[in-house]
């Protein structure tokens, strides 16, 4: 389970002064459910997810993931999390198998368990055809599968996806969305960020709309439709963020 409590992140910018990238964000993600963080570019999605993955430390607030605090116990949090984004690249000079094994070892797996898990994952994701190929020789789809294998190797109960389909072609994006659905079906807690409405409509059990670092509204798709009297998620999104967007532009 993920429980974000008043998560905030401030950065200092030489020209603009203090920037509140995330401002007092709180939400809960349940096991077996997908929580979608929907927001425009620069809304604070990546920073929020990076804080959950303990890549960044919150300025204020915290989050509890599988009973571990992201501030006090970041290493244990990371051991329970699989983090995937288009920014999480592969080591080009390692083979696909070496890459996955490396992360398995860093997650504390012993060699026997690691071998079994790698074989399982490579069979399941149909990766045996390129397991000994160097990552710099892989196609985009193969790279995405290798990244997925990396996040799965330690079988984490929580999965964090930061705009995982950004810039990918349809077929590769479908592999990713299929994988996200599979994670939910396997009882994992899933949170993912995107600005693609169709993905949210297809995948998410709960949707959180974020703008200017603030979580503006939260609920299931039917709840949001009821609340805003719109069927189309894009219309709902525009209704929610426009006042904040205009205020931000004026500032």
């Amino acid at each position, binding site marked *: 389970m993920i429980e974000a409590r008043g998560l905030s992140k401030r950065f200092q910018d030489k020209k603009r002064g203090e920037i509140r990238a995330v401002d007092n964000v709180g939400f809960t993600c349940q096991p077996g459910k997908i929580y979608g963080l929907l927001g425009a570019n620069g809304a604070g999605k990546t920073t929020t997810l990076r804080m959950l993955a303990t890549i*960044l430390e919150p300025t204020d607030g915290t989050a509890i993931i599988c009973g571990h605090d992201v501030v006090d116990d970041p290493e244990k949090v990371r051991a329970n999390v699989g983090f995937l984004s288009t*920014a999480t690249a592969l*080591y080009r000079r390692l083979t696909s198998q070496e890459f996955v094994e490396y992360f398995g070892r860093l997650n504390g797996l012993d060699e026997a368990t690691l071998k079994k898990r790698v074989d399982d994952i490579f069979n399941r994701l149909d990766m045996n055809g390129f397991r000994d190929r160097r990552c710099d020789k892989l196609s985009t789809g193969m790279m995405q599968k290798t990244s997925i294998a990396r996040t799965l190797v330690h079988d984490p109960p929580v999965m964090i996806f930061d705009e995982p389909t950004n810039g990918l072609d349809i077929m590769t994006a479908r592999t990713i969305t299929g994988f996200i659905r599979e994670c939910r079906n396997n009882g994992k807690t899933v949170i993912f960020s995107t600005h693609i409405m169709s993905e949210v409509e297809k995948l998410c059990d709960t949707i959180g709309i974020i703008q200017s670092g603030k979580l503006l509204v939260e609920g299931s798709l039917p709840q949001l439709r009821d609340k805003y009297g719109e069927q189309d998620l894009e219309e709902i999104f525009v209704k929610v963020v426009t006042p904040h967007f205009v205020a931000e532009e004026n500032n």
Partner: protein
Amino acid sequence: MSLRNVGIVYRKELTEAIRDRRTVISTILVPLLLFPVLSVGFGSLAVVLVGKAKEEVPKVMLRGGEDSPVVVDGLKKLDRIEIVPETAGWKDQIINKEIRAAVEIPRGFQADVALEKPDTVNIYNYEGELKSEFATDKIEKYMKEYRDRVVKDRLAAKNLPDTVLKPFEVKRENVAPPEKVSGAAFGGIIGYMVILLCMTGAMYPAMDLTAGEKERGTMETILSSPISRMHLVLGKFFLILTAALGTAALSVLSMGVSFSVLGHYTSQSAGGREAAAGMILKLGPATVLSVFLMALPIAVLFSAVLMTIALFAKTYKEAQSYLTPMTFVVIIPAIAAMLPGVELTPKLALIPILNVSLLCKELVAGTYHWNYIAIIFSSTCVYAAAALFIAIKMFQRESVLFRS
């Protein structure tokens, strides 16, 4: 601290480094080829060029001397010198290397010598030009021998012994063994080269494992794994250190082989035996080990400093622009140690790089100042530990890791 995790990171970085052409070139090929090219290549070339210069029969122009047949005959009989008659523009001919020198015998020289009147023989040459110097040396040697014979004859005529002019001899004798003589000559260069190659060996992996990772997007991938940042930075640091030490070790090895080959080659060549004695640099196991031990803390220092600086960069190119000036920071004290007369003092023993460079000079010459060794080793260890501490701290700063 989990050594397992540090080892996992180290092994992965080593695998990647071995597969990277640029790292292999900077860490293995450059140190292996640099010394053979510099010493054997240039040394052999120098021997060949000097040999060729000596083989040439230089033309020396004779000015005057019509009334001094004895001197002129003597000059003409000199082995491997061609005396040519005076023509106009002799100075230009020397400058244009058409003739190598000119000797001017003053009018009435022989008669003046007989009458014991003072006189001057001038030799004109092209200073610094090798073939001109050879010709001048031969003429000068002949004229000095002629002068000595005249002096001897004058003393004999007055029934005076030779000791009137030379009441005692002054002799210079080297008591240092040849290894120490050559060590004193080459020790500074060895220290300089080891330090420089330690630096160049560490430079590429330092950039690749920090700024390179940021640029390729793998930094975020690794930071999402459960490994602590300290273990991560230590794994990377040990790889950079391995590259630095590997480069230093290979350079010392390559240097030892190169000097042996050079010594052998010159001793085989005509007239090269004397030169060879000074060129044979014996790098025994004790010397190699002591140079390597002194290189260890400085390699730690370089690895930590280069990694810290490169970590600030967002791209490999930016890291290069930060680290390239560092080469000068290293070269200047290393060169200062090679300057004549610069020797270890308690103050200089505390200046990083300069101290190790000076100590290497002593070690290669076979001199072990244990007090200085202790000061230099411990002070460099302190600098290295401080640099490593800063590197670990920097790796924990978001503003450095995610600088935008």
